[in-house]
Structures are given as C-alpha cells and as structure tokens.
C-alpha cells in the first residue's frame, strides 16, 4: 500500500486496529489526545470496543478486566497519566495479562509541561508499580517504525502474557510523516487463551481464575521465579537496536527516539568533517540492548549518551559498558529538544577538539 501522511498519534491508533486490538480504554491527556479521539470513531466503526474511562486508574483496570477475559486490549496516556496506571500495570504483570500501553512522554516531574520529553525512561523501564516485574518496552524513532512496533506488540503481549509499552515522546506523537500501516510484521505463534476468565466455565468444564494474590510466601516466590524465567527469555530474545556507522567510530552516541533523529543529523555533519562518530540506537529500552555494546570495536573509546532527560538511560549505558569505555552525557529537559549543533559540540568536547 502507498504511504499515507499521518500524525503520529493517529498512526499509532490505526496501527493498533491493524494489529488486532479488540478494545481500547483511555482518558484524555495532552499530548496523546488524538489516540482516543481517533479510536472513539474508528473502533466503533469496526464493531470493536472503545470506552472513555473516568480516570487513568479506571482505564488500566478496564484493560485488566478485558485482558483477563481474553481480549486484545490497549490503553494510552502521557507521563502523569502513566504514573496513575502503575498500580494496574503491576497487577497486569502479576496476573500475567497481555496488553499494550502507549506512552507519549511530556516533561515532568508533577504536572510538568506538555512539550516532548524522555523523562519517563525510568518510569517505563523500572516501573512505578510494586513488586518484581518488568514490561517489554520499545522506543521507536520514526512513525514507520512506531506503527510496525505497535502492530507487533499485540502478538508480543499475548506470547509473553505480559504488558508491552511503546514509549514515544510528544514530538513523535504530534508530528506528521508518511507511513505504510499495511506493512507486514513478524508474527508469533500464540497458544490458545485457555487461562482466560471470560464466562465459559460450563463449556470448558472447569473454572478459571485471574489473580495476582498468593498468600503463601513459598507459592508467591514460586510465581516470582516463574515470572523471572519469562523476563530472562525477554532479555535473551527481545533486545532490539540499530548500530549506525559504528565500524570505525571512535566516539559512539547512544540515543533513542527523537534524540536519535537529531543525532543522525549531527553524525552526518561530523563525518563530513572527518570525525569518526557513530551511534547505538536502542529500540527496546526494556530489555536494554546491552548486546549492542559487545559489537563495538577497540577503537570506540567514548560513549556519549544524549537524552531529553537529565540522565536516565545513562545508568543502563553505564551498566552495559561495565567500565570499559569513557561514558559522557548530554541532556536537555523540561520539553526542550536538543539541536544537532549542541550534539556536535559535545562530540568535539569529548574528543578534546574545537569545532572546525
């Protein structure tokens, strides 16, 4: 199919429909409002479920009920709203329920602002809910990559029986780009949802329960170990990243999402000046793509992490680097998007040189 010019939020909403989303539950918050707006019309048109919930808290618990009944479910929000959903996300992970959560990040803390930010990296990759759990989390760079990941995410959620988050900043949500939503994406073989509590105890011949409660500590520990096994499988199989001109790079930028787009411009300019610079672009942020760092050659002596936050992914970069190379950081916050010139200056600073 030909590419269509679409706004990021609407493209994600359409990709969810194409990915087989049965039901959407959400609550208005800027800068992601085009997602529920688009779905309020198009889900109904497709004979699927759309509910505008009374709160973020209610929306994520509606997701829980619908996912527990075996449906493919999605919700979307932005930073303070994702904060409100954390309790529900912990319950979803604990009850092993699949769902997709779109997070369109804005500046914080608190009410913060409504301009693009990557300040929720820790919120997404560490989670604000209680207990030992993880969600699969992706941070795409272009609208095409975003729609492909949204489409796949329903399969991934079902396969792992776990929430999947797609984190973009407000800029990706709000900008327009040509996208092909019909592109085919890799499929997973999904076992039947014979665990779902959907009102079929008669037909099934046994009753199903969807619970996160295990009062016996040994039973809960067994459950925790089973979850851990699943998370380990994600760490082994779901690390996604792109390496850009790292073969000869002396300095390697680490950036994702909007910042990666800007870093590409910086790299082009620096390469024209003969600077050997490349980039590791994490696509999955949980699991963090530590495998990417093993691909770097001995000539790569410095990692420059650039984020629209004050150094959150930086911690994962340091862990993946394990003290091997010098790690530097540059960040803007509050909704300020860095310019390629700022990144170029940081690279020259790292090399101890002046810009030519």
């Amino acid at each position, binding site marked *: 199919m030909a590419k269509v010019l679409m706004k990021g939020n609407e493209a994600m909403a359409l990709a969810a429909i194409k990915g087989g989303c049965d*039901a959407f539950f959400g609550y208005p918050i800027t800068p992601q409002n085009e997602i529920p707006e688009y779905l309020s019309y198009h889900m109904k048109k497709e004979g699927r479920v759309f509910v505008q919930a009374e709160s973020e808290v*209610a929306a994520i*618990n*509606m997701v829980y*009920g619908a996912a*527990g*009944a075996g449906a493919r479910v999605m919700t979307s929000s932005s930073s303070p709203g994702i904060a409100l959903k954390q309790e529900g996300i912990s*319950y979803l992970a604990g009850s092993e329920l699949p769902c997709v959560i779109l997070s369109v990040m804005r500046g914080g803390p608190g009410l913060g602002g409504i301009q693009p930010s990557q300040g929720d990296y820790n919120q997404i990759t560490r989670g604000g809910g209680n207990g030992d759990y993880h969600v699969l989390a992706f941070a795409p760079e272009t609208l095409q990559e975003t729609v492909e990941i949204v489409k796949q995410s329903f399969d991934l959620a079902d396969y792992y029986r776990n929430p999947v988050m797609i984190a973009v900043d407000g800029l990706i949500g709000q900008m327009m780009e040509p996208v092909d939503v019909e592109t085919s994406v890799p499929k997973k073989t999904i076992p039947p949802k014979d665990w779902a509590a959907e009102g079929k105890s008669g037909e099934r011949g046994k*009753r199903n329960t*969807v619970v996160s409660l295990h009062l016996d500590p040994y039973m809960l520990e067994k459950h925790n170990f089973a979850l851990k096994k699943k998370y380990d499988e994600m760490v082994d199989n779901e690390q996604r990243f792109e390496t850009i001109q790292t073969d000869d790079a002396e300095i390697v930028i680490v950036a994702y999402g909007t910042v990666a787009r800007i870093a590409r411009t910086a790299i082009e300019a620096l390469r024209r000046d003969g600077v050997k610079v490349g980039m590791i672009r994490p696509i999955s942020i949980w699991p963090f793509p530590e495998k990417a760092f093993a691909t770097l050659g001995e000539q790569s002596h410095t990692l420059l992490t650039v984020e629209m936050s004050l150094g959150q992914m930086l911690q994962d970069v340091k862990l993946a680097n394990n003290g091997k190379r010098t790690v530097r950081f540059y960040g803007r916050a509050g909704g300020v998007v860095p310019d390629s010139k700022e990144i170029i200056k940081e690279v020259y600073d790292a090399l101890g040189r002046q810009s030519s």
Partner: protein
Amino acid sequence: MKTKTVYEPTRGLVDRDLTYCPGCTHGIIHKLIGEVLVEKGLLDTSVGIASVGCSVMSYEFFNCDMQQAAHGRAPAVATGVKRVRPETTVFTYQGDGDLASIGMAEIVHAAHRGENITVIFVNNAIYGMTGGQMAPTTLPGQKTTTSPTGRNVVDTGLPLRMSELLATVPGATYLERVSVHDPKHVRKAKKALEKAFDVQTNKKGFSMIEFISTCPVNWGMNPNDSLAWAVDSLIDYYPLGVYKDGGDSDAS
C-alpha cells in the same frame, strides 16, 4: 424408607471451607448469589470480580470464572469484562471500604455509564480484613481501631449512604438495600438478587444490591448481638428498601 433431598449445598459455590470469621453473614450472601446464578442458569457463563478486603478470597468460592481486582477497582474490571464479553453475566462482590472509600470513583462512574453489571455491596460499617478500622460507613460514635473513642463526626463526617447516593445517578437502573439477619429477610434478599440479575440479563443496565452485614470479630460482639446491633443501629441509619427501579432513560 424412601429419602428425598430437601436441602443441598448450591453448585454455585465451590465445595470448600470459607475463610470468613464465624458468625459473619458473608457465607449467607455467598450462598444466595450461588443459588440465584444456578437457578437462573447463569452460573456457567458468569464472571465474578473479587475485590480487596474480607472478600479478597471470594474468587476461591464462587463456582464460575473469577477475576481478582485491585482495591476499589472491581467496577472498572467488570466494565472491561462486560464490554468485550457482553453475553456473559458479570458481577462484583465488594465491601464498604472497597466500594465506598477507595473505589468511590469507579462505582459512581460504572453506574453513570449504565454499565450492564450487577454489584453486590456488603456493608458492615468497618474494615474487616485489615483489623477493624473506621470506614466511610462507620456509624457516629462507633468504636473502631482508628476511631478508638468512637467516630467523631466533626472530624470525620457522617456516614455515607451508597444506595441513596447512587439513586441520584441517572445511569443506575436498580438499587436495593437488604439484610440477612433472619430467614424472612434472607428470602427477601434473594428476591432482590434475582431482580438485579434479571435487570442485567434483560440488558437494562446497572444494578446494585446492598447487604447490611455484620462483623462480630471487629465489632467485639458475639454473632447474636451482632445481628441485633445490625437491626437496631445499622438498619436504622441505612433503611432497607428499593432505592431505584428503572433507569431515568426508561422513565422519560
């Protein structure tokens, strides 16, 4: 000699010991729900939503598909189930701390949307599971572990009447407050449950049956005295009866 069965446990409940304290009326309420679901042929296509509180374990007792919700969120979870599986019968089972305190937004908005679910609300005027703290439904002067000298309404307000409150919500269809303190009232309560599940089966919208219940352990009374106190004090503040029958949209 020929024998005939005059009474047997309902298939609507799982054959196992309940976790509720002796003398509390959760057991009677469970039995009535199980019986109604069986008699109406709904059990095998039902999904129950357990809440947080004493009823947290209720997913172990109702003999149908069950989901366990976060504290107060049972009506939202029920909404999710019902919207994607509209052919199933969906009910929540919630106490007064869960429904009238932490879950106030979810219950009001489920009613507001006219969500086609049935809510079983068990009001015993106290937090039972956590050891007897004050609830929004605790009576003035009632002693609890967080109102040790008795509920002071100057500091904590007057108790909330949920059936009356929800009767003001246009989307609610059927609301009734019942009690199970004697056989006559048990039979009446069963009829109320039948009505509520009929409302759902007929796709008429939101129904809630509020049960006046007891908590002998946390009230510090024996079961008989608890029943007497429920009648004399609780029912006095929370009068039994039908608070709504028919949605506002039906009336117009």
